[in-house]
């Protein structure tokens, strides 16, 4: 039995497939193990840098210094803008060591400001601010994915709609899989129901 000669279309398809496989291997090699730490969703939103003079003792004692509090409220995160207030007793400060897992998140070492919002269904304090000490300076950041999505989506993706950016950009692989599922379903229906020779 003679093997049929390869057509040019077959060869070009083979080359394309091999290139795509090589590219996939390259990309998979580059993937971080459990999500990209530097991806937009996981970064902090840096607010400002302030000198530490006597602020560290106050932070260790569990009291947010009024300097930081006033500056945060001047930036617009105050009661008038519907942000949670930083009144005494409303928050608590926790120190986490570098490299420890705090609430499922790898800590970078610093003070977390947890605010109890009094939600009905999630009745636990939420991490809002994050204070890090570098070279006798205190860097104040804000956390978490909803905050970041609210404030940075327009700047990063040029779209005003958070949901669109989340669907198509930040969670693009998920949408790709959904679309592939739809295509596969259509192909399965064709294979099961369609009679041969009827197009």
């Amino acid at each position, binding site marked *: 039995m003679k093997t049929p000669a390869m057509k040019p279309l077959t060869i070009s398809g083979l080359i394309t497939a091999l290139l795509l496989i090589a590219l996939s291997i390259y990309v998979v090699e580059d993937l971080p193990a459990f999500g990209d730490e530097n991806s937009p969703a996981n970064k902090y939103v840096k607010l400002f840098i302030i000198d530490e003079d006597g602020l560290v003792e106050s932070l260790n004692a569990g009291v947010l210094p009024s300097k930081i509090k006033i500056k945060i409220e001047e930036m617009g995160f105050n009661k008038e803008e519907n942000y949670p207030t930083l009144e005494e007793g409303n928050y608590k400060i926790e120190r986490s060591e570098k490299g420890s897992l705090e609430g499922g998140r790898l800590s970078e070492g610093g003070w977390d400001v947890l605010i109890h919002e009094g939600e009905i269904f999630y009745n636990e304090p939420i991490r809002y601010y994050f204070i890090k000490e570098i070279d006798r300076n205190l860097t104040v950041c804000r956390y978490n994915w909803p905050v970041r999505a609210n404030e940075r989506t327009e700047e990063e993706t040029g779209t005003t709609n958070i949901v669109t950016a989340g669907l198509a950009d930040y969670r693009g692989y998920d949408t790709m899989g959904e679309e592939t599922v739809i295509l596969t379903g259509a192909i399965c229906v064709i294979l099961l*129901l369609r009679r041969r020779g009827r197009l």
Partner: protein
Amino acid sequence: MTQLKKTYKRDVIIELTTSLMVPFILLFGLYVMMGSGGTGGGFQGGTILSAGFILYITVFGVVKGREKMPESVNAFFKSFGLFLFNGAGWMCILFSLAAAQWLNMPAFWPVSDFMGIAGSRSFLIAYMIDVGVGLTVMAAFVSQFFDLAWKEDDEMEGDEG
């Protein structure tokens, strides 16, 4: 007797209403599908587009609907939508050659040159990813509807013969 079953009962009111409505349904589907700051997205827009086609097929019959949406166009749209989506991702990975994150820029230089990186990301989201999803969803639903309609026709023929 077979001819009677094959011919569709025509109704002037339904046909006129449908032929007036279908273009606007398709236009509304395009409006929902496109645009990054818009109301919907690819899935919803594709569903509305396919609803327009399905309304046309239901009213005018499978044979006339097949003239508007031939199998070649259907198959092309079905695979081309997924190709657009995946092509955008591949292009971004190829141009940036960085960690495999969706739409990781500085990709897509022809657009990012005069729109900026955020602008080109917005362009990709609005006109490649959403349109890709929409085309695939529309063609998949229309093709499934055709298959089911033919199945019914074949079974009716089989009963008689």
